[in-house]
């Protein structure tokens, strides 16, 4: 009766990041978790350093973001000054849920579903 799946097969999902054409920001693909956290935090650090008013994070090809990944986004957004903001496009449901529950009303983050 016991169904065992003892080991994982297949590659570990990564996180790939591409510049957005014609806009300040990046498109990410993959997932944000323990093994890709450093890549995600690197993206956010660079985004904070950019001087643009709006920085786009296109996440429609990101399938999952864990709580630490959402926390890194909230922390980065908290460093934005002078009305600057991140526009987070089409994030996975997990990211919206986590932001709503743990960082409600966080300044500097605009979630766009289109």
């Amino acid at each position, binding site marked *: *009766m016991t*169904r065992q799946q003892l080991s994982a*097969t297949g590659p570990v999902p990564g996180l790939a990041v591409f510049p957005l054409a014609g806009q300040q920001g990046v498109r990410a693909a993959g997932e944000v978790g323990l*093994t890709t956290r450093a890549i995600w935090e690197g993206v956010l650090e660079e985004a904070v350093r950019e001087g643009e008013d709006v920085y786009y994070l296109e996440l429609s090809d990101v399938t*999952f973001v*864990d709580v630490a990944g959402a*926390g890194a986004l909230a922390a980065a957004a908290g460093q934005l000054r002078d009305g600057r903001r991140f526009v987070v496009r089409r994030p996975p*449901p997990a990211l919206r849920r*986590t932001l709503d529950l743990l960082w409600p009303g966080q300044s500097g983050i605009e979630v766009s579903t289109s």
Partner: protein
Amino acid sequence: MTAAVTEAFGPLDAFAHPALFYRDEQEYLDGTLPFVRDGLEAGEPVAVAVPDKNLDLIRDALGDAAGSVRLLDMREAGRNPGRIIPGVLLAFADAQPAGRRVRIIGEPVWAGRSATEYPACAQHEALINAAFRGRPATIMCPYDVARLPEHMVADAYATHPAVIQPGTRAEEASAAYAPEDVVLRYNEALPPVPEALTFAFESDSLSHARHVAVGEGARLGLVGVKLDDLALATAELTTNSVVHGGGSGVLRVWSEDGYVVCEVRDDGRLGDALAGRRPVPRDQRGGRGILLVNLIADLVRVHRGDDGTTVRCWFAR
């Protein structure tokens, strides 16, 4: 474990936590209404988090004054007892001006709480004393002594430093007050469920573990937000095992009554008695995984053993 629990409790000073024993609606209102009105008169923020029918009683009896009270249905807000301290009690108290005394009526134990839920209820009641130690707050907890089993009423004497007998308004000290004992007594073993889907994970297979849980959750009838929540809970618990729990663990998923249950077992020791029950300051990085699980799951049970930790969470189908 014993030392960590004992350390979390201490002198109560500013904090008061009486149990209000009642047998019928009249005794319920006689006990709760003056508590609410005295608070409002003193300018104290007041919240009432009780099961829906009792909430209606209090709301109706308060009339216009109900508009000045934060009213919450505990069957929803406190469905998972582990969510009540961070999501209801501290969420309300922390939103008030610093140092302002707050009053809360909290009724987490009602007839109909399942045998699976109850240990988490008793531990929650005990841990309120640790979470609010030294804070200017009064939390009154009504207990329906006419309908609750005897052992639950006996536990209320152990989790509350004072009790109010039915039909009286006088607090008496509880000689049986021993919240540490309750936390330890209800730290019940959670033996593996034989028919569960079982998946051993480590750092490289965290993502796979999440997919396994979501696939099984969907097969067992979980949909929509609940399935997203299962993914989040699995990710947080398995990541905790890899980072804090010895680098690996075992995930199990199965169905039980109307729920899909997800369990993560590892070799780590969870020392902090209030882990996952404190709101985390906005500027603090990390430390929110178990808190999030408490906020999204319908029930969370934890077993802290000498040789490892098991966290089990339920999601209603």
